[in-house]
């Protein structure tokens, strides 16, 4: 087991599993957040968010998610550093553009940007809900259900540049995903010449859905507040 996890393929195996776990999490996260779009009173989103925050299954998955992120980031650093280190002298001239995509060559940079966005994102919402609290959360909440809807929409309506940060964050995430989706299956050995095409297409569908969906939410909140 130890020799497996120390091997180059074993480390990639962990990247892939943690990445697929994050991919699944993103989809669930999007479904929950999309409730913001369907009920402008906010009750629907607040109830679902409350359910997610208190449900025992989710309470168990939460630390697993944190471990998933940490593993993914840890191994991303280990692999990227090793990969830099094994080419002590670089090329004077290298044309990479015709043989690989930009995203596939810049997964670490994209990942680091995602991490920065993640810190902003967690301090905006999760941190306030879990730890510091906010008067917005207590405002109009019924039966112990926090008014997360008010917290989210207030932020997106009051600070237009936060909306921009969120849209940029989703674009960066989307670029990471364009390569990540197929790559994760390839790493697990679950690809061949036929399945590769299908997985790449599925990856694009997933990416457009998830990145587009997450970008839509702040824009929707901001624009509908300007219309009303």
């Amino acid at each position: 087991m130890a020799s497996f996890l120390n091997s180059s393929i074993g480390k990639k195996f962990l990247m892939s599993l943690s990445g697929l776990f994050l991919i699944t999490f993103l989809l669930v996260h999007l479904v929950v957040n999309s409730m913001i779009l369907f009920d402008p009173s906010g009750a629907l989103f607040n109830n679902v968010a409350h359910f997610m925050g208190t449900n025992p299954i989710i309470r168990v998955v939460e630390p697993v998610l944190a471990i998933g992120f940490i593993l993914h980031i840890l191994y991303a650093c280990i692999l990227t550093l090793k990969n830099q280190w094994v080419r002590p002298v670089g090329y004077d001239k290298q044309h990479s553009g015709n043989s690989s995509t930009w995203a596939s060559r810049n997964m670490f940079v994209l990942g680091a940007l995602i991490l920065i966005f993640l810190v902003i994102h967690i301090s905006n919402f999760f941190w306030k809900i879990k730890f510091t609290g906010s008067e917005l959360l207590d405002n109009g909440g019924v039966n112990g259900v926090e008014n997360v809807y008010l917290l989210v929409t207030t932020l997106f309506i009051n600070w237009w540049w936060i909306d921009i940060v969120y849209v940029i964050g989703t674009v960066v995430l989307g670029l990471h995903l364009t390569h990540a989706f197929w790559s994760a299956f390839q790493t697990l050995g679950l690809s061949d010449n036929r399945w590769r095409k299908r997985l790449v297409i599925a990856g694009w569908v997933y990416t457009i859905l998830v990145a587009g969906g997450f970008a839509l939410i702040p824009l929707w909140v901001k624009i509908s507040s300007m219309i009303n």
Partner: protein
Amino acid sequence: MDLTLKVWRQENRKAKGRFETYSLKNISPDSSFLEMLDVLNEQLVNGNNEPVVFDHDCREGICGTCSLFINGRAHGPDEDITTCQLHMRKFKDGDTIVIEPWRAGGFPVIKDLMVDRSAFDQILQAGGFISVNTGSARDGNNILIPKHKADESMDAAACIGCGACVATCKNSSAMLFLASKVSHLALLPQGRPEAVRRAKAMVAKMDELGFGSCTNTGACEVECPKGISVAHIARLNREFLIANLKP
């Protein structure tokens, strides 16, 4: 055609290398890239200078020794060929051509443009073989092999060990080379008995020799002169995972 060459010169493994610039006149567009370098070397020798050291052997695209990184691409601007199959008509009169050795920690420079690829031999020695008892030759059709498997195995066996995959890969990963070797044996019944040991031993050797880790950019298959597909890397991953699941 008239050309300017920027060529990597390096005395030996330890020395610090540098680029030298040379001018060449009246090169025929029909000559091959290596013939153009032969002309350069003749010019250097006639001027009492050290010729440029570069690897080559068969000059017909089958041995894999000719290893040059030309204008930012392994084996130069043409698709699916080795350097010896590259012709000067792919360039324009007045062009500047940058020629570098394969650059990877696993392939140290011996001199100028020649690198040491014995790491590939070591990977092969670790498990890229099948063990058979010697004796009289067996009947060729003793063991029946489905056509599609034989074809796929042959595709993998087309690898000539040139190292363009490592040279091109941003991670200097040898996964395409290793995958073609593992795949070609894993697909055949003769290769199955040693499959577990082979996958483990060859991956361990590759890691030990200082090649990077694959991130599936796919650059290797584009620059591979034999068009080996990264689908073989998926098979290698599969073989390796299964080998590690078995007790």
